[in-house]
């Protein structure tokens, strides 16, 4: 017979303000099986946990129910408290009377009544709980980082420096990511390449780091500590072991009309190419879609000019399977498409550009060799307009609801750099709010205004229209309460950023949850910001939310520490809430096996003794190390032989009964 204790938490006033805690205690005390019930200000506090411990010891409780916040908050806290008091940690159930009750209801009567019912359901469930013992599983001492931008590189370096093997999988031909496209960085204005390249080189040279560029993650199976990942190494058509990186092939390649992705399409590149001069690895790839040899079979110039004989037109995609203990997602971002913003004339005039395009124009290795000029006539502009919040903070479907966070600062940077290098160019920034939280950020913005004479006008631009070789900008100056119509030579749009679209596919493979904006969800917004709710999956960089370089690097380091913390363990404790087949009921029909996503179910011939009737039969056996406890098999099983420990049929039915009573 179970002896249940019920502990009702006030959570300060969070619960007690809307739920009559005393009445919950009274009602719970009358439930069959309950031998102890009490309430306390903060059950999760040291003192609260002590109360639980005392009650368990003094009243010889076999199980406890804590009526408090969501089990997602403190289930583990109370399980540990129970464990310390000497009962099995799985003899604990939580009635969520905060998130699911006190916080959403206003009427005390109603909320109290509901809290009583929720407590009753938890009591009914715990009455059927059985002690569970977690098993253990091995940890593969190797990590995978998906994405080779600054987030991925930093995470990989930190993990590798701690002594663990790390693989980076990068989709493009080189690591470096968005940061490699930037010219200068705020607020210090140091050269982006100068600080990034050494990290790239370090990663490439690190003995613990393996880099797979031009590669993609194809399939992921397994679970924390033991993921199995298929990586597709796309055919490069260049033998990496032979290529010397001399670049002759790229010079001689006759097909040169492909838009240069690295320069955001502002110029073109050859079909065989390395994305940029400092690319790592410095080995080109053949873009088979645009290569004449692959399109028509005629050409082969690159093979002829390659001294090293590295060109290999017959190379095939290769799939390798590697086991990892942890996976870090660092897939980064892209700017949103501006197709739906006709009012800014982005598709109508080459002189309306995005900020990332401006970065390339400003960069010495960019399409204009670093000269500021209009893309239409290559003339230097006399005046420039920057428009903030293009596609950010939008309630409609055209843009994104969030603030892209980095635009205010990089716009100030651009404005400042232009005024510095070309003092005769008149620069105007139209803003809604200037957001500059961050060390030395506001000072930086003020310098742009005060020292460099950038005009900041509060008011979003309504329309940009090409007029002759000029652009007409129409806006309202909200502070002067007047409408502005001004002609300018160039317009730069601070375009919203969004997670790399590929992240959705990757999140699905990893079973990591993702929000409506395609940002990966962190396990807890405040307390676990670099962990995905899926065990063993960590988040680094903008894939989790907009952030600038220093924040990205900080998060990359944090993710690395979490990975190292995981890899440092030899064994992981597995979830004991696994499926279990009752051989007496099992038909051995193989239905459950078909729905198991983990291949955790196998069949064996077993001697089954059903009340003295002995028979050797084929029955299902669950590998508890592989089983993750989803319960798909329990419903697929026609005879009800399969049940889930911790969420058994009887437990759930008892909850249903208790709620409907």
């Amino acid at each position: 017979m179970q002896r249940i204790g019920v502990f009702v938490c006030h959570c300060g006033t969070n619960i007690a303000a809307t739920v009559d805690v005393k009445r919950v205690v009274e009602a719970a005390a009358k439930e069959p099986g309950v031998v102890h019930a009490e309430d306390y200000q903060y059950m999760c506090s040291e003192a609260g946990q002590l109360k639980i411990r005392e009650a368990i010891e003094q009243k010889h409780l076999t199980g406890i129910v804590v009526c408090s916040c969501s089990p997602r908050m403190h289930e583990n806290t109370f399980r540990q408290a129970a464990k310390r008091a000497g009962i099995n940690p799985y003899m604990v159930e939580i009635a969520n009377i905060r998130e699911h009750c006190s916080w959403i209801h206003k009427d005390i009567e109603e909320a109290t009544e509901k809290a009583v019912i929720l407590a009753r359901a938890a009591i009914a469930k715990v009455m059927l709980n059985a002690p569970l013992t977690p098993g253990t599983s091995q940890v593969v001492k190797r990590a995978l980082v998906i994405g080779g931008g600054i987030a991925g590189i930093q995470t990989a370096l930190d993990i590798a420096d701690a002594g663990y093997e790390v693989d980076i999988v990068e989709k493009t031909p080189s690591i470096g990511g968005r940061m490699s496209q930037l010219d200068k960085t705020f607020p210090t204005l140091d050269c982006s390449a100068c600080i990034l390249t050494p990290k790239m080189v370090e990663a490439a040279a690190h003995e613990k780091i393996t880099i797979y560029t031009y590669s993609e993650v194809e399939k992921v199976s397994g679970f924390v500590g033991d993921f199995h990942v298929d990586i597709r190494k796309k055919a490069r058509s260049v033998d990496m072991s032979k290529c010397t990186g001399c670049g002759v092939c790229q010079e001689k390649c006759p097909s040169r009309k492909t838009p240069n992705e690295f320069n955001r399409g502002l110029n073109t590149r050859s079909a065989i190419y390395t994305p940029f001069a400092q690319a790592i690895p410095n080995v080109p790839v053949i873009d088979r879609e645009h290569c004449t040899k692959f399109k028509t079979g005629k050409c082969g110039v690159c093979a002829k000019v390659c001294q090293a004989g590295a060109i290999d037109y017959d190379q095939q995609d290769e799939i390798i399977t590697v086991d990892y203990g942890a996976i870090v997602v660092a897939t980064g971002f892209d700017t949103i498409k501006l197709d739906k913003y006709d009012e800014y004339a982005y598709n109508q005039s080459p002189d309306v550009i995005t900020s990332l395009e401006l970065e390339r124009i400003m960069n010495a290795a960019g399409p204009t060799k670093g000269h500021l000029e209009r893309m239409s006539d290559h003339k230097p502009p006399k005046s420039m307009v920057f428009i903030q919040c293009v596609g950010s903070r939008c309630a409609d479907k055209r843009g994104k609801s969030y603030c892209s966070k980095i635009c205010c600062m990089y716009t100030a940077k651009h404005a400042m750099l232009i005024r510095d290098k070309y003092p005769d160019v008149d620069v105007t920034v139209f803003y809604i709010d200037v957001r500059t939280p961050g060390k030395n950020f506001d000072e930086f913005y003020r310098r742009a205004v005060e020292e460099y004479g950038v005009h900041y006008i509060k008011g979003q631009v309504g329309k940009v229209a090409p007029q002759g070789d000029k652009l007409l900008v129409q806006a309202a100056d909200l502070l002067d309460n007047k409408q502005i119509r001004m002609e300018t030579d160039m317009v730069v749009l601070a375009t919203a950023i969004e997670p790399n679209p590929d992240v959705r596919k990757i999140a699905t493979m990893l079973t990591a949850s993702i929000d409506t904006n395609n940002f990966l969800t962190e396990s807890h917004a405040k307390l676990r910001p670099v962990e995905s709710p899926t065990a063993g999956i960590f988040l680094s960089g903008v894939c989790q939310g907009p952030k600038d370089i220093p924040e990205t690097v900080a998060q990359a380091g944090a993710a690395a520490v979490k990975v190292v913390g995981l890899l440092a363990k030899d064994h992981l404790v597995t979830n004991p809430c696994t499926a279990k087949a009752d051989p007496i009921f099992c038909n051995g029909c193989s239905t459950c096996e078909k729905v198991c996503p983990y291949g955790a179910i196998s069949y064996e011939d077993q001697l089954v003794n059903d009340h003295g009737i002995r028979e050797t039969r084929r029955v299902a056996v669950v590998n508890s190390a592989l089983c993750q406890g989803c319960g798909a098999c329990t419903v697929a099983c026609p005879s009800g032989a399969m049940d889930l420990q911790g969420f058994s049929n009887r437990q759930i039915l008892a909850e249903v009964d208790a709620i409907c009573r």
Partner: protein
Amino acid sequence: MQGLIERAKELLADGTVAQVLGWRKGDMGYDPEPAYFKSEEELKDFVYDAFCGANLSKYMIEAAKLEGKTLVFLKPCDTYSFNQLIKEHRVDRDKTYIIGVGCQGTLKPEKIREAGIKGIETVTIDGDTLKFDTIYGAKEMPFADALLERCKVCKGKKHMVYDELIGAAEDEEAGPVGNRFEEVEKLEAMSPEERFAFWQEQLSKCIRCNACRNVCPACSCRKCVFDSNQYDTSQKANAATFEEQMFHIIRAFHVAGRCTDCGECSRVCPQGIPLHLLNRKFIKDIDSFYGEYQAGADTDSRGPLTNFTFEDVEPSIVQTRGGGH
């Protein structure tokens, strides 16, 4: 029929099989029972005619535990059930010798009684006519009028699995007959209130004798969930209509995607509840939501409930599909 007996004798004699599973003559001419035959002598009571409605597939679960091979006679629709049982590892194909037998449709004695024919002493099937000697004199009725509902919408006279065929239909006449979803469609076209009344009247007759479950080749569980103490379902009592609804819904759900539509449930129900209409509803839904699927047509495909596609319809289709639903 003599051909079947002769072949069974041969297979017994040459040691191919150790026993024969077929039908044994009854007392009335319309009540043959499934039976094992172990010798030539016993086979004199063997019978195969339109009254041999029983699907012998399910008996093969137990037969797998016997010594030696068992020869079983399966009608075309029985072979679907057998295949499904192979898929579920419930029968042993290697210990089975299947003779596929031809079928002209099977009969329901209840229908003869409903036609007012009683006191039957002998029955003769004479082409399209059933002839009876009764203590109330000679009687007859059309063969077709005594057909089981399932045979009026036969899904085809092709055998899905066999070692040899005797008397099986030629290809041209083996195709399906009638629209088996007609009755389901009729119900679907009713208002929810009418449907509720219909099922209420039918299911309230249930006496929980479990004949439907026990005869069903898909209900092959060693121990049924309804025989388990775990769920607090009152197994035997027809105490409240809810229990009957629950039992029949769950039973239909458990066999959904596995039911071959053999119609045994409706054949055996002592209260004449059209249970096949529940199973057929699932079959119809599966066909329309997830593509045509015939359980038992093969032994290795994934059943519709252990499968999915990314584009599957959402459950809200039940609300939005409109029509009589």
